[in-house]
């Protein structure tokens, strides 16, 4: 991988063909370090290196972290903010669904012989319904790109099927939230863009308290 590619995750994201799990994780870790500094991504980097060779389990652990984040956002932050109407209804419904994703991923990681990551602490910079929904849009759309980016690296067809059944739900959530706040439900037009781990961390990383 060239420095140019590290500095251009968007370009790197196009290189799904032939990409191995290890290169996915390594590229993600290195790119995140390059863009955000070692300190901010230290937990992910050390985890990625510690678990290199962990295969599908380590990809699922990354997904699990995102699902923990989404579940916490809807179920805890949603209540703190004090939502109403459709926003409240979505937060209740989506929060329950993200919680199911957490349970499914935890079980899948164990089934693969891995160790599920512990739930991190989170900090969400939202104080109102509108800022809550804006962040919800970011999180759901990031979730779609994260799964779509990582899925081709999965070795197990069963795990891929599970990831597929989850990402479709993330996409539905994203569209519903975007419609609610007057945005396009298809921000990427006809093709949802896969995200690199670095791109995902750019959105989600600042919300995670080590």
């Amino acid at each position, binding site marked *: 991988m060239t420095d140019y590619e590290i500095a251009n995750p968007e370009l790197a994201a196009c290189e*799904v*063909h*032939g*990409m191995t799990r290890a290169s996915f994780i390594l590229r993600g870790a290195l790119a995140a370090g390059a863009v955000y500094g070692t300190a901010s991504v230290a937990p992910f980097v050390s985890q990625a290196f510690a678990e290199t060779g962990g295969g599908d389990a380590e990809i699922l652990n990354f997904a699990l972290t995102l699902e923990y984040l989404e579940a916490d956002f809807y179920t805890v932050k949603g209540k703190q903010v004090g939502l109403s109407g459709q926003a409240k209804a979505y937060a209740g*419904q989506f929060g*329950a*669904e*993200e919680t*199911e*994703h957490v*349970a*499914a991923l935890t*079980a*899948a990681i164990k*089934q693969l012989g891995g160790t599920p990551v512990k739930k991190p602490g989170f900090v969400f910079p939202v104080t109102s319904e509108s800022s809550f929904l804006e962040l919800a849009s970011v999180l759901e759309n990031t979730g*779609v790109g994260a*799964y*779509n980016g990582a*899925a*081709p690296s999965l070795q197990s*067809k*069963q*795990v*891929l*099927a*599970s990831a*597929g*059944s*989850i*990402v*479709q*739900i*993330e*996409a*539905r*959530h*994203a*569209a*519903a939230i975007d*419609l609610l706040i007057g945005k*396009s*439900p*298809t921000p*990427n*037009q*006809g*093709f*949802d*863009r*896969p995200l690199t781990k670095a791109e995902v961390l750019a959105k989600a990383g600042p919300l995670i308290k080590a």
Partner: protein
Amino acid sequence: MPSPPKEESAPQPAGIVERLVRDDVDRKRFLKMAGSAGAASFGAFVLAACGSSKKGASTAATPATTASGSSSSATGDLAILNYALTLEYLETEFYGKVVASGLFSGKVAGLIKDFGSQEATHVEALKGAVEKLGGTPVAKPEGKFPISSAGQVAQLAYTVENLGASAYLGQAGNIKNPEVLASALAIHTVEARHAATLGTLVKKSVTPQGAFATPADMATVLAAVKPFLA
């Protein structure tokens, strides 16, 4: 892993398939896949893996060996791509007729038009992918769609998009080429976005299957679209 070609003995919904896949080799593969039990066990796994809190069917998590039993990855992916292309052709034609009907106005009309354009880009992408793999894109089928009222059309669109999302999900584990898989995934979630949007229009759940989307195999999908083939 290569294995010798197998006898094509699957049950055949002949009329549709003749229309769908004109290449003989592709057709055989298509018939085999459509009739195989592979997709069924694939679906069973999703339930086993994801419904852990409710279902104790851990024994269902046996490897989907049917998927890896294909003798040629190119042929398998081609059949899947042509199958997807057929669905996208139908969706594109459907939206085109809906737009032409003038049943919608304002913001909703804009969404419908966008979705139709996006389905058209899926058609182009899939045609390109088939050609890139050395195959022949399936001919555009002729569709027929009941278009009577805005409510009926929105409901039909909701049904069609949910079916499309399930169809892509049902093939994800069968695709061999990582590039093809990445493309299918990129389209899959857009179909899901369409389905959710239409769900809000018809006042139905944006996640009708709950936290885990259900895949649909080729036979199920083809049976469901049969009424829309002229």
